[in-house]
């Protein structure tokens, strides 16, 4: 698309209109979008077209449509984080990611559905209803960035942005057969990313190919003085790495704890085949031991709720969003209470209560304190593993896409789906999921996860692009081209 735009074969306006049309066709079934910004998208497309006609130098992604997870603020465009409590709120400012996207000339077509405040792994926790997996509309696209993943998978947008606190980019990428990357913590500014768990949240790119994803990653990453946790240093050249497609002599570590029991047989099979492909490309496969990963899920479900119980305190009806019970004589406290009760969904309340409890005096050491210790152990496990391997790999998720409603009443089963992705977040490192094929038993996409040390995001793209190239030639095309047609034109 970028080349066609550059050559003048198609204008951004045409490209954007085509995607808006596709959204109109298929989104009633997929429900990837919470808000489609038709006017804003066409205005930006026209600007890019004008700049191109004027001979200005443009970013390779200028004029390309993008779907934005509704967790990032975009000035003047409704932003809800999938919650009723922010219904009707139009941000007064652009998140840093959105500023960078706009500056690159990328066209934001709309805001995508998500689990409320990014809490969930299926997008079923959205206050605005679930998103459906384009591969099988009876199944979830994963979550929490399910809307963004589904939009890319359903050809509603070639690029999307999600956020990944415990796997919320990688898992939906896996379940929808696309590429998703969670960059190193601090590589992408969190300014304007509505916080779920501050020490784990990180926005990142979705694409249909590793190179597309790298180009978007490159736009998003960089130091931001508005985010104190933003890394100030030299950022790796992920685009060059994605063009390298070379794993000769690289050591690839398979994490013992993240395979086998509990993993669907088709998932394990595609994972094992991918390993063989990498070996055939000249990589050396080694097994590494990460014993503390056993406790990762428990630690995550203490740290994330603790931080969210505090982060979500600001939704109090005083300054923006929903306000309930503000009748004559109602006190500020009663309005806060009524609003929070009406505005937050079950899962959000569950995590706020859990986190409030975990931080309470007398319980802090046992819960939050212990969780932080586990976090340190996981970081140490990774350090040892990365001493033996350049990248680590695992299946992204234990299963392929599950049915809508299948796990929604069983939070533990839902949480277990994040077992392979959560350690990356706890350690603040980076991870990618890319398609490894379809599981034999259900013909649904399987994700292959690659993990690299902090600020070594380029390794993800180097290994990912090599594996992708080999698999695509094996399959005779990208996996996504095997997705069922949803009607309309792709």
């Amino acid at each position: 698309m970028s080349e066609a735009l550059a050559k003048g074969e198609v204008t951004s306006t045409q490209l954007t209109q085509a995607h808006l049309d596709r959204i109109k066709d298929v989104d009633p079934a997929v429900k990837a979008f919470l808000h489609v910004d038709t006017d804003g998208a066409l205005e930006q497309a026209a600007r890019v077209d004008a700049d191109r006609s004027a001979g200005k130098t443009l970013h390779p992604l200028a004029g390309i449509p993008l779907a934005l997870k509704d967790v990032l603020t975009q000035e003047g465009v409704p932003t809800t984080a999938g919650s009723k409590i922010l219904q009707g709120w139009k941000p007064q400012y652009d998140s840093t990611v959105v500023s960078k996207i706009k500056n690159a000339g990328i066209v934001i077509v709309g805001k995508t559905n998500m689990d409320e405040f990014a809490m969930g792994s299926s997008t079923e926790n959205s206050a605005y209803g679930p998103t459906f997996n384009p591969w099988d509309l009876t199944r979830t696209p994963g979550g929490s960035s399910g809307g963004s993943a589904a939009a890319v998978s359903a050809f509603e947008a070639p690029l999307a942005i999600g956020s990944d606190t415990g796997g919320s980019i990688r898992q939906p990428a896996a379940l929808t057969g696309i590429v998703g990357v969670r960059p190193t913590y601090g590589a992408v500014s969190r300014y304007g990313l509505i916080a779920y768990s501050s020490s784990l949240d990180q926005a990142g790119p979705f694409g249909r190919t590793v190179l597309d994803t790298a180009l978007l990653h490159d736009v998003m990453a960089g130091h931001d003085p508005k985010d104190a946790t933003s890394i100030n240093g030299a950022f790796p050249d992920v685009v060059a790495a994605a063009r390298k497609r070379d794993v000769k002599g690289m050591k690839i570590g398979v994490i013992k704890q993240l395979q086998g029991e509990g993993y669907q047989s088709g998932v394990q099979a595609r994972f094992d085949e991918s390993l063989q492909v990498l070996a055939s490309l000249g990589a050396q496969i080694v097994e590494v031991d990460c014993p503390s990963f056993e406790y990762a899920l428990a630690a995550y479900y203490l740290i994330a709720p603790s931080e969210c119980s505090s982060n979500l305190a600001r939704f109090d009806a005083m300054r923006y969003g929903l306000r309930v019970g503000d009748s004559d004589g109602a006190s500020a406290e009663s309005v806060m209470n009524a609003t929070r009760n009406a505005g937050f969904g079950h899962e959000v309340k569950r995590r706020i209560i859990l986190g409030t409890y975990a931080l309470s005096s007398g319980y802090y050491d046992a819960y939050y304190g212990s969780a932080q210790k586990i976090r340190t152990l996981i970081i140490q496990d990774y350090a040892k593993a990365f001493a033996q391997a350049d990248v680590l790999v695992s299946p992204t998720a234990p299963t392929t896409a599950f049915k809508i409603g299948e796990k929604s009443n069983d939070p533990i089963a839902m949480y277990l789906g994040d077992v392979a992705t959560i350690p990356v977040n706890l350690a603040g490192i980076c991870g990618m999921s890319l398609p490894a094929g379809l599981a034999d038993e259900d013909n649904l996409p399987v994700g292959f996860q690659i993990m690299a040390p902090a600020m070594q995001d380029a390794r993800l793209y180097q290994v990912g692009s090599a594996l992708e190239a080999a698999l695509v030639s094996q399959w005779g095309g990208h996996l996504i081209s095997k997705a069922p047609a949803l009607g309309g034109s792709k």
Partner: protein
Amino acid sequence: MAISYDDVVAKYDPVLGLEVHVELNTESKMFCSCSTTFGAQPNTQTCPVCLALPGALPVVNATAIESTIKIGLALNCSIAPYSRFARKNYFYPDMPKNFQISQYDEPICFDGYVDVEIETDEGPRQFRIEIERVHMEEDTGKSLHVGGATGRIHGADYSLLDYNRAGIPLVEIVTKIVPGTGKYAPEVARAYVAELRDILRGLGVSDVKMEQGSLRCDANVSLKPMGSDVLGTRSETKNVNSLRSVERAIRGEMIRHAELLDAGQKVKQETRHFQEDTGLTRSGRSKEQAEDYRYFPEPDLVPVAPDAAWIEELRAALPERPSLRRKRLKEEWSVPDKEMAAMVNADVLDIVEATVILGADPTKARSWWLGEISRIANDKEVAVTELSITPADVAEIVALVNKGELTDKLARQVVEGVIAGEGSPAEVVAKRGIKVVNDDGALMAAIEKVCNDQPDTAQKVRDGHLPAAGALIGAVMKETKGQADAARVRELLLGHLGQ
């Protein structure tokens, strides 16, 4: 059941604990770039960060860290090589995030002390106030409760919120418990707050205006029976807004506690509010159910790890300690205690010193600033420093008087002119045509005219009744529009009348 203060201190031993909140005078807020100017239109100094819009993140103001370290050093504290911010979680409408970014178990400065001196029955006595910690935090917004009789939240019709103050950098200075002050507890507390105020002003890190709330004191008081080792239950009187109120609040609380204890009742651990009009406190929120603030390290901020060499630079650049400076100036200027106290109270020490440094005689500099200029400032209801007259102007005026080019009386006109914005002293002299008439011929003409006008008085002087000369001198001065040197007029007049 009134009990006298003397009875209270005969029977009970007070223990103090003082928490002082200081608003730093940084240009921008603690965690965003909004302005900190006092008195702006409500909610005009806000942004996504201090309004806690979804997605906004805090970034620490480096100047605030520097100011806090300076405060810690000036209070003889250790500076933590590594400290963290923490979230203090509680809901309140004027707190945008519903948590306050503060410091909890890892304050930036800890273990310091301040020595204060007060007058006692046995003469001056020094008390050491030990500092537990100095930490950084952000201020909340302000609620304005409209309607109802009291301006308080109870009974109000509605409330307005102003977030201009939300996020203003605050430094909290907490003492360890202060035992052993006995009957001087109120004076020691006052002297401590005054000393802190002077130290902070000397550092230039805060406006330290108690009346505007840029320095606020929470006073904890408890009583224990004389000789007991067991601490009594404390009450905490919040936001005491003047030095005098600190003293009154503590005295009042000591009496209130003693009355309760004498009656066999318990002192409630609670927050109380000081009432300026009565000098008493009233009950606020009860602390029986201790609030659980669920502190945890602020994940949006990185730890503060100041460079050791930089801390030493800051230490080396600390200004002279105010109490030592006062002692030094008192000796250098040979000022009596009372005058020194007057200068400190009128807040003119800095400006007098600046004037002396520019060459003015200390006594003259002091008398101008403390006298005429303070009077004008009082009339205008502003601080002397807000007048347009500078130490350089005063030094120039003193020099003109010394050279005999101005009399004291003329000099007052020049001061008035400078304050009225007519320019420098020299310009005022020129514009107003002020000059000492030292032309003896002109003076003699005036003297002759006055003696002719008042022949009886002149005769009295000739007869040796010298006090009568005063009236004639006055008339001559009037004749010369005050521009004559009165001493020279007297000399010439007496000569003229044969005395």
